[in-house]
């Protein structure tokens, strides 16, 4: 599978990750296309989340993690230790499995990231941005009268959309989503899926999911991981309809999970 290199958002070269001497990710070479949804799928414990967290260098806040190889984003190897990690992470918004709103009001949850990256931004501009991003995730009409209530008063589904608004408010290029719907009820999950489909116009979405149906609904490109190795990667249509690898076929048939 060849995609023109100017449309590649993230590329990994010989990426190895060890955790406590355990070999977690083995020689990962993938190319994640820009402004599409890439689903990372595979059975539990195969390293999906580890791979996702290596993209914004969240792995290294844990101890005993050793990473080697290269992750190229915008032509720069982000694993270079001389780079400023907050700058890398600002480019890579993240949505975790369970929503963790910041311990602040609904408004401040979105405003905080904006303010921290532009401390001189006038108040009314911050407020406009907050409204814009809350509208973007379809929360504004639901919560515009209680912007200054604690974010924890929202339902879990609303919290997850708030976290999405918070993530895009710092204007990232990529959205890293780690099973973002697994803690949600079906309706809230559907809202998130719709949002991801809408957001892929402006952002590159990398989605870790363990539900094949979700990957089929959303993905444009698929990376199949098994025991820390990339078994197959390619456009979603090809992967789901014409998988080449026996393990991929077994996984799609539900024989390994």
């Amino acid at each position, binding site marked *: 599978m060849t995609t023109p290199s100017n449309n590649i958002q993230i590329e990994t070269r010989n990426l190895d990750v060890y955790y406590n001497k355990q070999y977690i990710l083995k020689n990962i070479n993938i190319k994640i296309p820009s402004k599409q949804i890439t689903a990372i799928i595979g059975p539990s414990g195969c390293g999906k989340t580890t791979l996702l967290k290596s993209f914004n260098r969240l792995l290294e806040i844990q101890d005993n993690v050793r990473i080697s190889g290269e992750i190229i984003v915008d032509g720069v190897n982000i694993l270079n230790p001389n780079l400023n990690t907050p700058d890398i992470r600002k480019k890579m918004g993240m949505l975790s499995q369970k929503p963790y709103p910041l311990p602040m009001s609904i408004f401040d949850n979105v405003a905080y990231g904006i303010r921290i990256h532009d401390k001189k931004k006038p108040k009314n501009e911050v407020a406009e941005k907050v409204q814009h991003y809350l509208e973007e995730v379809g929360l504004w009409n639901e919560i515009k009268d209680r912007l200054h209530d604690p*974010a924890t008063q929202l339902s879990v589904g609303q919290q997850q959309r708030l976290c999405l608004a*918070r993530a895009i408010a710092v204007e990232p290029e990529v959205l890293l989503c780690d099973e973002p719907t697994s803690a949600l009820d079906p309706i809230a999950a559907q809202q998130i899926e719709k949002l991801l489909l809408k957001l892929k116009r402006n952002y590159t979405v990398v989605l870790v999911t363990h539900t094949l149906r979700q990957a089929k609904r959303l993905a444009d490109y698929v990376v199949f991981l098994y025991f820390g190795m990339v078994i197959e990667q390619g456009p979603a249509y090809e992967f789901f309809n014409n998988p080449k690898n026996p393990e991929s076929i077994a996984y799609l048939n539900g024989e390994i999970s």
Partner: protein
Amino acid sequence: MNKRVIEEGVFEILMILSLVFVLGSLIIIISLVLYHGAPAITVEMLTQTSSSRLYTGRGGGILNAIVGSILLAIPATLLAFMVGLTVALFLQSDFTHPQLANSVRFILDILWGTPSIIYGVFCMVIMFILGSTTSLLWGIIALTLLEIPIITRYMDETISMVPHGLKESAYSLGLTKVETAFKIVRKQALPGIIAGVLLGLGRGIGDAASIVFLIGESNSIPSSFDSPTSALPTMIFNLYSQPDPYVRQKAYAAAFILLIIVLIISVASRILTKRLTKHIIK
């Protein structure tokens, strides 16, 4: 009867007994202090400073000790809080390798268990070496040292319980480690931080041994950090050492006032905690 049912019953009884024991001793202490001290609690007690030499006599009140205790404990707690919060935040694995952090924790635990008289003697030795004399300042220094391990370890434990996912969320917004620690983690851990400060304050305001060599005792309210001062715990000790029953009554009265001060601080901070923590995730 079923063995498990008996077990359940036995532990329920044990639980009730220990509760009665704890609450009972608390009630006995307070009523004993009140019973012996009530006759001596007068307006003069609270509004006048002592007028007899080193409290050996009957004259005057204990205002100098009340003010002295507050002037000792509040600045000491503030200092210990500033040091403690910083150390506690830096002990987290984001900043410090867990092995090093655990060694620091071990040392802090030893310091927590060190008798307070050791702090007193230590500060006295330093005071002599520096050629300084007894004063409010040396009392504050000793209490600060006494409170640091308590406040730090308590905060450390509560800060460790901040969900990892919250920190990851903060980092993924592009926050630095320091911003994450001092803005997000601190907010989330606030109830524990306040509880730690209270624990330190409670220990500091009630401790006599660490300051007995350092504050110099005085009948007047200290006018500067250099002046000697009195404090409630040392005053209780001094008053109660006297044979005169009235003077002993004053000791009980002083003890009662110390209890009230601690109670007021606890209740006030509980209200404060409720107000400040409506945003935290549960």
